[in-house]
């Protein structure tokens, strides 16, 4: 199993969610997040005083998938989240040792 994590622009969430659903992903977890990449943040002005806001709003999507689907799903997320502008985010995957469905106690791929 793999855990795919995507940190993306909040307004791309719906596209990513729909793309994952149409592939057949049954569940995902979304968290509000904030952070910055190479572009850093943006500047805000209050009565002439300028503030650099480093941390910009993002959403973090996490989804557990079969090893076989991981690469394709990552491509799907990237395609759906991409705007081509700076700050589009990152997607990565890590191996997961075990997963358990809490309701039934099923383990491994059956728990997905």
């Amino acid at each position, binding site marked *: 199993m793999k855990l795919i994590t995507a940190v993306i622009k909040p307004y791309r969430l719906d596209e990513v969610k729909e793309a994952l659903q149409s592939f057949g992903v049954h569940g995902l977890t979304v968290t*509000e997040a904030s952070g910055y990449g190479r572009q850093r943040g943006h*500047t805000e*002005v209050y*009565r*002439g*005083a*300028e503030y*650099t806001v480093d*941390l910009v709003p993002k959403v973090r999507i996490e989804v557990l998938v079969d090893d076989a689907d991981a690469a394709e799903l990552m491509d799907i997320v990237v395609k759906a989240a991409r705007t081509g502008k700076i700050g589009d985010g990152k997607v990565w995957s890590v191996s997961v040792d075990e997963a358990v469905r809490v309701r039934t106690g099923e383990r491994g791929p059956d728990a997905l």
Partner: protein
Amino acid sequence: MPPGIMTLAADKAALSPANTGFMLICTALVMLMTPALAFFYGGMVRVKSVLNMLMMSFISLGIVTVLWVLYGFGLAFGQDNGGFLGWSGDFAGLGGIGLTELWGTTTIPVYVFAVFQLMFAVITPALISGALADRVKFTAWALFIALWATVVYFPVAHWVWAEGGWLFDLGVIDFAGGTAVHINAGAAALGVILVVGKRIGFQKDPMRPHSLPLVMLGAGLLWFGWFGFNAGSWLNNDDGVGAVAFVNTQVATAAAMLGWLAYEKLRHGSFTTLGAASGAVAGLVAITPACGAVSPLGAIAVGVVAGVLCAMAVGLKYRFGYDDSLDVVGVHLVGGIAGSLLVGLFATGGVQSDAKGFFYGGGLEQLGKQAVGVVCVLLYSLVVSFVLAKIIDLAMGFRVSEDEEVAGVDQAAHAETAYDFGGTGGGAVARPGAGAGAAGGAGPARGDGPAPAKRQGTAPASGKEPASGKASASGEGKKVDA
């Protein structure tokens, strides 16, 4: 403001129901300005001290109202003593005033005039509080309000507005409070912050406004209430002067908003919400002394000048390194000076009085009088406020402790926090009966908000400064430039 004579004459026939009703409505409008100011200021501070900011304005409604009844009205508008202070035994406790006794030459009862002026006395000290955001003891502030109203506001109101007051007799024009309210409060703010000092992290940490919608709401309500402030200051509705004041209030405020925004766009690249709200307030401040003396075109000039000037002035605190948190000096002192002096240039001589400004053939005489009023009120308020603040600082300490300031004055002074972002009660546990009485009957019903950590002893770790999870409220920003 028309002169009042101190001999009261019961003359029921002359009492005007229309003027009396008009003035009561204006009075209620002016009352609204203090809570409006509280929101205007409250939105500009950080999450951890918004309640304290609201309370610092709101408490003035309590303290000054009581003082006004006891002796404030007497000191400000009683029989003159040498031009400096008034006193009339009948005014003490508002006790010796008949229901239908009229104020001076007006057609409104003394009670109506007294309560209208009360609202001015309430908002003026509240204006000062914006300079002291986030860092002063509430008790010290409350004591300051009481002393400042007594020693500064009541006498200065007498100088400017009461018959026999020395600036009134000199011919200084202050229709509704350019000197008595705004220069007075702005200079006081400067005096107090020289004693109190900067917020921890000033010019280092991000201190962005936590809610610009609140700022806009406050500014909008201030604008609305200001019609009562200015149009009501003529004390009648018989000759159209109040209507001119009303028109000028609208016109100058609009022009000042545009002036501030234009400056901001040229200088910083954006039309900001805070700029629009601040520009409007700057215009309201500047037109206050002038709205009975200038034409609507003059009001546009007053507004634009005030808008641009105040927008430039708010940067001064960074240059000089004093922490006027919410720009009371930049907006109220500078705006008040601008409006008061511009009367000397733009007074048409055909509205409130015959006095003409420089551009209307009056020479420099009125400008000179205005300058005397500006300088004298500024210096008096600055010096006395500094001394009062120093006395309070020595006696009880004006500032909260460092850890209380960092954690937020809301918890330290009020045992409350403003927002529950998490929907989980901030980790608070309701403890029926705990602190009942002392904490105002804390019971099960309070379980829907953060528990006051100090009193209930269940310090919620997350209650210090609730993080919203969004960029707007957390401390991720870094101030890079002034």
